[in-house]
């Protein structure tokens, strides 16, 4: 019997008992669809973590200073800037301020930093200019607005060149940042940036408690980190006064946690596939018993063992393949719904879908072989006598 005829026959037997076929395939459907949904969502969240960490800036080291007894000043920052492996250093000072333009007021996060901050944090200016070193030196009351803040305060007007009040003090808007979107709890669209020295005065602090250092390149990141740690150790005399965090480390940890979770969930889903396979085997055994007479008839008119074996094997494989296909469909739909409902990133992996589908085929073959073998070995006379 040709393969095509066998598949047609199998489809017919499946159609003859739709509810049972559906229940039989359920295990495979659940297995395949959950593998696909979980992996797509998992890889999506891995990707969004990586993306958002990258968007904070590349080759970035974050230094936090907890010791306030020993003052850490711009001179110390400049020393770190002289380290070979370090390209840029940006001290940062954060606070919340109230902005006022005419009748419009808004509360935003304010960051005080230097000219290098633009490169360190991967920012770009859509209109006007960024803060310069001269602004720093002269404690200029200039301000760069995040795109959303600019929109709130000035609407459709061009804010560059206009004045606004920061906690009651008059500042001149020199630039607007390009819209970037939020990442890792920070949203630069919703902030304002002023020169570091100006911010020190505004917020009433003299100490530097946090700064970013950008390494020259990927390769020099570790050297930069070591040199900075050595430098800080010299300044403070102990290693508890500061922490140096490597962007890459954070990223690696996050994505490895994510990958582990994804693999774990996919593993659980695979078990469901296996259980689905056992379900198919179970039903195929029932089917062989129910169709004993049919097997007897087929053998009496010349079916060989091979023909009967193939008939039942193909039926099992068609069941599992159909289940696999439906599973892929449901998995995709579930992923799409999740993506739309939560606004999260998802990654559709064709390789993964192919794998899940092929896995369901293999499950069908493995678990279909036993019942098919049983059917093919039936004695034709006894099978014919079966009622």
């Amino acid at each position, binding site marked *: *019997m*040709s393969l095509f*005829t066998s598949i047609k026959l199998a489809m*017919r*037997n499946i159609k*003859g008992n739709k509810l049972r076929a559906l229940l039989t395939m359920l295990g495979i459907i659940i297995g395949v669809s959950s593998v696909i949904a979980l992996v797509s969502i998992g890889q999506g969240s891995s990707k969004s973590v990586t993306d958002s960490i990258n968007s904070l800036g590349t080759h970035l080291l974050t230094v936090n200073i907890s010791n306030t007894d020993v003052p850490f000043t711009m001179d110390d920052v400049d020393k770190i800037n002289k380290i070979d492996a370090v390209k840029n250093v940006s001290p940062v000072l954060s606070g919340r301020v109230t902005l006022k333009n005419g009748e419009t007021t808004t509360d935003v996060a304010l960051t005080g930093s230097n000219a290098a901050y633009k490169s360190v944090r991967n920012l770009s200016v859509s209109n006007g200019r960024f803060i310069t070193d001269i602004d720093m030196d002269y404690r200029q009351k200039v301000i760069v607005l995040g795109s959303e803040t600019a929109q709130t305060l000035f609407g459709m007007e061009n804010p560059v060149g206009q004045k606004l009040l920061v906690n009651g003090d008059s500042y001149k808007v020199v630039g607007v940042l390009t819209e970037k979107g939020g990442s890792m709890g920070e949203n630069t669209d919703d902030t304002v940036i002023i020169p570091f020295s100006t911010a020190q005065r505004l917020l009433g602090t003299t100490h530097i408690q946090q700064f970013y250092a950008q390494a020259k390149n990927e390769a020099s990141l570790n050297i930069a980190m070591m040199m900075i740690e050595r430098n800080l150790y010299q300044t403070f005399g102990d290693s508890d006064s500061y922490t140096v965090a490597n962007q890459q480390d954070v990223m690696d940890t996050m994505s490895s946690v994510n990958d582990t979770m994804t693999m774990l969930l996919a593993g659980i889903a695979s078990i469901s596939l296996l259980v689905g396979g056992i379900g198919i085997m179970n039903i195929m055994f029932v089917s062989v018993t129910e169709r004993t*007479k*049919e097997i*007897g*008839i*087929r*053998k*009496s*008119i*010349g*079916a*060989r*063992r*091979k*023909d009967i074996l193939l008939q039942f094997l193909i039926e099992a494989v068609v069941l599992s393949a159909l289940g696999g296909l439906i599973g892929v469909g449901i998995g995709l739909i579930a992923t799409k719904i999740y993506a739309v409902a939560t606004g999260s990133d998802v990654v559709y992996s064709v390789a993964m879908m192919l794998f899940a589908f092929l896995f369901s085929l293999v499950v069908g073959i493995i678990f279909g072989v036993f019942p098919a073998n049983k059917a093919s070995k039936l004695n*034709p*006379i006894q099978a*014919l006598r079966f009622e």
Partner: protein
Amino acid sequence: MVEAIIHMRDLVKQYKMGDNVVTALDHVTFTVEKGDFVAIVGPSGSGKSTLMNMIGCLDKPDQGEYILEGHTVNTLKDVQLAKIRNENIGFIFQNFNLLGRLTAVENVELPLIYRGMKAKERRECALRSLEQVGIVDRANHYPNQLSGGQQQRVAIARALAGTPPILLADEPTGALDSKTSQEIMDVLIQLNNEDHTIILITHDRDVAQKAKRMIMISDGRLTETEGTQHESVHIH
């Protein structure tokens, strides 16, 4: 001299049930010639079906020799037996044994499928043999939409489809009323006239009288009576 199509010598088949041994066939020696129409009659449990299964290569004897169209059947492997069942033998059963999920014409196609015939050719052959038994108008009906007599015609068409030289019918009229039985017998007689060798099992003496030869079986042993169509006319 007519060619022997079936030759059995000293065939023995026993069933062991614990200590109890049932000898279903007891040293059966038996020859059927090409074009023969043999009726096998005997009481229930006498071994008729066992003999039929043996002739049809569904079962193997414990002892003895069976030669079918030159093949020594008792030495053949399963695959070769399946081929013989497919090409040399057409089975007709008491309870028709059609597959309920398939239409009449698809049932008739079955033996051709196992022969590897192409779909189009297969359909033509199947329709031709349905035509031959006069039921081609029901080709697309399912078995449960057909009467017993019609189902048996479909079953005969299936047995005929592969044009096997031998037709084996195990009580083909057993489940039918006398009028329908008569019709089915007419179909078989017609087929015999068209050169098919037919072996028929029956309980019914009237049915058996229509065959060219009648063989009695009891307790697994054969005795042949001089019963031919012409003589049966004298009896009645």
